């Protein structure tokens, strides 16, 4: 019932711009699981993964090569939102289905599996403001300068805080979504800051931020967490203390690669898919924390593995502009 055309003999390739951090590693793992499953059930015939070393020209070349090799669909986690548009257009012209996800490319012909990062910023800012009672000092830990994800989240945070005159952004550093860099940057600015009541983050930087406060001997503020195992474990540990530890974990899930995989398969199958498929953010609240912690190994990144059926529901919800399905809570991630 999936669609008119059979995709059993098709191949879907993944072009990934960077494999050098835990999130991307988990993303690749989820791709692998989804693709293996897809092959096992006869949904597709083969897959291939090509990584570039965070270099847009190299990734562009590799996409050209995949085009040349005649893959039916190419799924892309892009090194740059703009730099691949030329080759993506080229691939589209060769009647190849192109799906971009996570770090998107803006080429109009590509299907986009998109998080709403502005919304992510808004949600965390709202949470912080509400929790502080519209009064307090907030430090912002940003991602890699010059990326659209960083700008979107930042924009959402600034927009949301505009509604709360009592909240003051007292500092901003770039933690590059990396524990060690976030730790260093926060530690550097911390001595010059007044009391910090909360820290808004972008994920991957919560643990480092906490370490910086701890070594500086400062009271731990409310830190918005990402979805790395160390962040969740930290949350759990802090929550065990007196008075608990209210926060939320907000992130994009590396399992989004499995959504992108199934979206590509659905397009190949001839299903009507909107050009932009919105994906719900992974939001972990206190009552789900234990379930998530159980499912993610040390050093891992929590994520659901999204299945074909779930993706079909997602597409339907996007088409019908209805509420997006909730991310499944994992029952055990390999």
């Amino acid at each position, binding site marked *: 019932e999936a669609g008119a055309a059979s995709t059993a003999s098709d191949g879907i390739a993944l*072009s*990934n711009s960077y*494999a050098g951090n835990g999130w991307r590693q988990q993303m*690749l793992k989820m791709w692998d699981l989804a693709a293996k499953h897809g092959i096992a059930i006869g949904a597709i015939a083969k897959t*291939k*993964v*090509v*990584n*570039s*070393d*965070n*270099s*847009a*020209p*190299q990734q*562009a*070349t*590799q996409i*050209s*090569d*995949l*085009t*040349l*090799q*005649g893959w039916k669909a190419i799924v892309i986690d892009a*090194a*740059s*939102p*703009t*730099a*691949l*548009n*030329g*080759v993506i*257009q*080229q691939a589209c012209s060769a009647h190849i289905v192109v799906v971009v996800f996570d770090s998107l490319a*803006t080429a109009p012909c590509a299907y986009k599996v998109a998080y709403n990062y502005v919304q992510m910023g808004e949600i965390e800012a709202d949470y912080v403001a509400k929790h502080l009672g519209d009064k307090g000092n907030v430090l912002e830990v940003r991602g890699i*300068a*010059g*990326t*659209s994800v960083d*700008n979107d989240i930042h924009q959402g945070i600034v927009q949301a805080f505009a509604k709360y005159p009592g909240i003051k952004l007292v500092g901003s550093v770039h933690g590059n979504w990396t524990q060690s860099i976030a730790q260093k940057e926060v530690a550097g600015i911390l001595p010059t800051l007044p009391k910090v009541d909360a820290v808004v983050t972008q994920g991957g930087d919560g643990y480092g931020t906490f370490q910086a406060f701890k070594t500086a001997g400062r009271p731990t503020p409310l830190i918005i967490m990402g979805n790395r195992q160390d962040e969740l474990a930290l949350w759990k540990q802090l929550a065990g203390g007196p008075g608990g530890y209210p926060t939320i974990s907000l992130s994009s899930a590396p399992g989004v690669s499995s959504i992108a995989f199934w979206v590509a398969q659905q397009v190949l199958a001839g299903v009507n898919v909107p050009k932009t498929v919105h994906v719900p953010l992974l939001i972990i609240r206190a009552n789900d924390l234990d379930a998530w912690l159980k499912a993610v190994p040390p050093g891992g990144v929590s994520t659901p593995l999204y299945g074909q059926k779930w993706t079909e529901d997602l597409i339907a919800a996007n088409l019908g502009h209805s509420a997006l399905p909730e991310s499944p809570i994992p029952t055990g991630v390999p």
Partner: protein
Amino acid sequence: MLAEIRLPSASPRVLLPAAALVAMLVLIFAMEPRAMSYFGLTLLLNFALPAVFAAMAQMAVIAAGDIDLGLGPFISLVNCLAATWLTTRPVAGIVALALLVAAYAAIGALIHLRRLPSIVVTLGASFVWLGLALLVLPTPGGGAPAWLTTLLAVRPPGVPLPVLISILVGLIGWLLLMRTSYGTVLRGIGGNPRAVARAGWSLLGGRVALYTAAGILGVLAGLALTGLNTAGDATVGTEYTLVSIAAVIVGGGEFVGGIVSPAGAVIGAWIMLLTGSLLSFLDISTDWQLSVQGGILILVLGLRALEERPAA
């Protein structure tokens, strides 16, 4: 055609990388016969142009016995300017690009006058370029000027555009640097600056000339990249720093002594490009793809050492 060029002592330096390039092409053609077509080569070598220009720019600096660690971010900056000002305010864009070339010349002059190590000055400059790129274009976007995208989409008869221009660039570089009399003097500066100065030549002028050439070639690399990408991004060129250095060395150049080869640099740029490409043709676990990239570099340069050994 490139191999026929008579370079009395440099030719063995160029022959080996040329052989390596042929081997890589043969491997790719064997795995993907479609690559052998006009269309296939166009796709395969699509991004050769920015790489070739970048390699030539780096070569100009290495010819002076220097090294440029700022080239990649410089290319990004050109990309950002081309995707914004050059499209919306062409005059301002052209002036800005001209100023960038002048800035390169100024860096060359600074390095000479204050006797600074180029490696660190250009490292500092790389931060400046990146910062300026972010100021020009805080988030990726903009659009390439139409003439640029059209230019890069040209399909000349017989020979694919990237191949054609690569050969042309190599040829022009060879003519200017290896055949003209001033090019000879410039290489002499890399070999024995004092001797050249004592013969009455201005070392300042020479270095400025080479850095100006590097600036112009860097701008061309950025423009070519913009034409291919169709938009701007402040971090897009970063890799070109190391890629261009590796291309010059793989192509038979040396870090000291003004020993460079334009033909070799072009071949080196192609090798670096195809090294990344091979990953998409070979079936390698994602964990080890980086290793393979490193391994190919080691192989190409290691062969050169084996070949040179008997003479040493």
